[in-house]
């Protein structure tokens, strides 16, 4: 098995600050960036903090920025770098650093709670649900999401714009709204919530989220744009407008 030495630079530090630390490290054939981080832990940096679980691109834990690009460390093969190319690994920029490569992703859990949940159709008992494959597939695409938060990290609305965070749920949770809206049996209407409370209007469809999605979900084209269209349909329908004026929305 062939192996070589590679130049790694890993950000080490905590909320108070930190720096890039250089590590020469052995790389073997077939390895991914996460393997190298683990090798550093086992050798010279026992306390190097990193999140990971499945090591197969299914859990979305090991998100980081590799040479500036948001990626899963377990799905970034070392063979994609030239042998003399420096590999720089830094934590996700949009979330506060806890230590080294680990960030506080609590923002996402807060936003998850702001999306009105699935509302089952009344009068349909468990076991009586009937849906066509073609109809469930639209939402199924969004349910492939592994919640790696790379899209949340990349979106320029909140990346370097802390002030937008309270008003903007981010692509992952706007897509969650789309998923529920396209669920064949869900009975709730979230079009006002998504515009007023979750900040769909901030999105100007630059597709950065789609580009970094490791599941290749077409977030912008299949979720965000159709949601914008649905909101517009509702807002600019004169009858709906009149109805909203006369009967104020109750509950949510």
């Amino acid at each position: 098995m062939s192996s070589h030495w590679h130049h790694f630079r890993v950000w080490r530090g905590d909320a108070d600050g930190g720096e890039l630390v250089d590590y020469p490290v052995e790389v073997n054939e077939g390895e991914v960036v996460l393997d190298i981080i683990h090798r550093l832990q086992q050798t010279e940096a026992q306390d190097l903090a990193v999140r990971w679980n499945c090591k197969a691109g299914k859990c979305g834990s090991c998100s980081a920025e590799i040479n500036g690009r948001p990626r899963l460390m377990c799905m970034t093969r070392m063979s994609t770098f030239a042998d003399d190319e420096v590999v720089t690994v830094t934590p996700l920029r949009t979330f506060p650093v806890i230590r080294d490569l680990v960030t506080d992703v609590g923002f996402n859990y807060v936003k998850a709670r702001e999306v009105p949940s699935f509302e089952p159709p009344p009068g349909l008992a468990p076991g009586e649900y009937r849906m066509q494959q073609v109809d469930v597939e639209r939402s199924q695409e969004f349910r492939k999401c592994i919640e790696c938060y790379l899209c949340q990290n990349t979106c320029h609305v909140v990346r370097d714009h802390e002030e937008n965070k309270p008003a903007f749920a981010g692509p992952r949770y706007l897509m969650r709204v789309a998923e529920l809206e396209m669920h064949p049996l869900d009975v709730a209407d979230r079009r006002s919530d998504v515009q007023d409370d979750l900040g769909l209007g901030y999105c100007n469809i630059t597709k950065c989220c789609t580009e970094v999605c490791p599941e290749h979900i077409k977030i912008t084209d299949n979720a965000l744009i159709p949601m914008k269209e649905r909101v517009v349909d509702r807002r600019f329908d004169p009858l709906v407008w009149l109805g909203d004026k006369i009967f104020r929305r109750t509950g949510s």
Partner: protein
Amino acid sequence: MTDVAKHMKSETVEQHEYDVVVIGAGGAGLRAAIEARLQGKRTAIISKSLFGKAHTVMAEGGCAAAMGNANPNDSWQVHYRDTMRGGKFLNNWRMAELHAKEAAERVWELETYGALFDRTKDGKISQRNFGGHTYPRLAHVGDRTGLEIIRTLQQKIVSLQQEDFRATGDYESYLRVFQECTITELFTTGSGPGAPEEQRRVAGCFGYFRDDGRFVRFDAPAIVLATGGVGKSYQVTSNSWEYTGDGHALALRAGATLINMEFLQFHPTGMVWPPSVKGILVTESVRGDGGVLRNSDGKRFMFDYIPDVFREQYATSEDEADRWYTDADNNRRPPELLPRDEVARAINSEVKAGRGSPHGGVFLDIASRKSPEEIQKRLPSMYHQFKELADVDITKEPMEVGPTCHYVMGGIEVDPDNGMSVVPGLFAAGECSGGMHGSNRLGGNSLSDLLVFGRRCGLGAAQYVDGLRARPAVAVDDVDAAVDRAMLPFSSATDGGENPFVVHLELQKTMHELVGIIRKADEMEMALKKLADIATRTRTVSVEGHREFNPGWHLALDLRNMLLVSLCVARAAVERQESRGGHTRDDFPAMDADWRHLLLVCSALGEDDVELVRREQVPMRADLFDLFELDELKKYYTGDELGEHRAGSSGQGNGA
């Protein structure tokens, strides 16, 4: 020193009180927590990683439930029989019965939480074929069923929190998730020396938060363990870092018992190349959807490995096997779909005989069997996994696969109906509990197990709390001892202890090489000697630095659990002198009916030793026994045991 002074001296320990604490946030833990909350209990969920990342996401193939959507002949009785056969009749039959009867309801319930399974033409939940299941039975979403189930349960918890918010103004008033938190001790009453056993009850637990290392205690009269498996004790495994046998070890140290620890499932198809992904799972759905196993001669070798007990149910020619995919009623199943233990042993034999693939596995071929479009549609994440990790296009070339440590059948001994262990207030569900799967688990029976027994444990815990007159109190001394134990790896550093990563690798190597897929008495005796040495080294492993997200410290504490569990596996594996399911003895290659009715029960002796006793199984209830034909039972049972069967009548009308 007075208690007060001692307490002053010790670390600050964050304190919480709950009715029910669920340790583990995979399918079983989340389903248990949902049930406890629905029963009105204040419930905490403790997750070792981030909420929603649990190992359940790795489950690919599906969730077995006899809904009869794909074949109306399916029923709970057929599912029950398949499960018992798969486990070689060593299963806790009551658990297998409850599981077969309730799995369908639990799957349908997920749809009311918003789950979106793949559909049949008439709009019902689609079901796929899997090894050991008579009919297509696995509800699925492509090959990412586990992700769908974890996300659905996670989102149900969020929706319950939203309900609580509307009622109380606080999302976390009834259901709170403590994430990146590891539990290191359980507290019981009556645990001190000389305390009467009958006073022992769960009182709470202790742990630390991974991010900043602060300590936390939960005072709770009921604890549900749902911590999953033990695969990280092995070198080649499909399991994530979380699978360090925490629940198994916590239960042992709290006075509970483990059963069936000799039975480990080596999944037949793990990736074998590249080395960094060795062990990662290749779903059984590849075979369920038509994939076949070939050796280096291109031969479909599984036809040579059909054991006698399964001879009537499996095809003997490629033609018949291929016809089965379209006409299952008139043809027998392809042998690639034998239970996992059989397939894993067959692959092992082919590789040993020199007919393996270049990287020491065999070939799994779907490319020559299905169109590229079909493969990408049915097996999207496998396509993705091989493309991105191994640079192999599975629509064009075969995969290389070999056995990987995947699942532990053994676990905490529990009451089948409510999931309570022998320690009052301590419950267990999912992979960390034992009995349901006997000596070998069928694919698809894990996700359904999580749902059925997760719910039952949540209910059992709630009822147990209702029946208590007073809440057991946590002893201050126990908390101090827990702090000291957790800090030990730092104080050991001054004595020059070893790096935990080094000791861990040694443990993995020992278990892999000496208590692996094929076992021999002398090798296992050697393993026990090595484990005694590793025990000494584990006690003194040392870590550098601080408690903030320090992986060395985390591993040092997990290592203690892995060691205790490995001791149970090795001790039970030496004791059982037969081959059955996930326990294969080179020196005792046959299955022996005199061993079927015996359970090996482990309990802890101090910090790092175990005691093992034999216990008789409770005989199967008559009406369940009668679901099987006498001829089949003869292959598993002793003559004396068969006297209970409805001998004589042919048992028609049971389906088959």
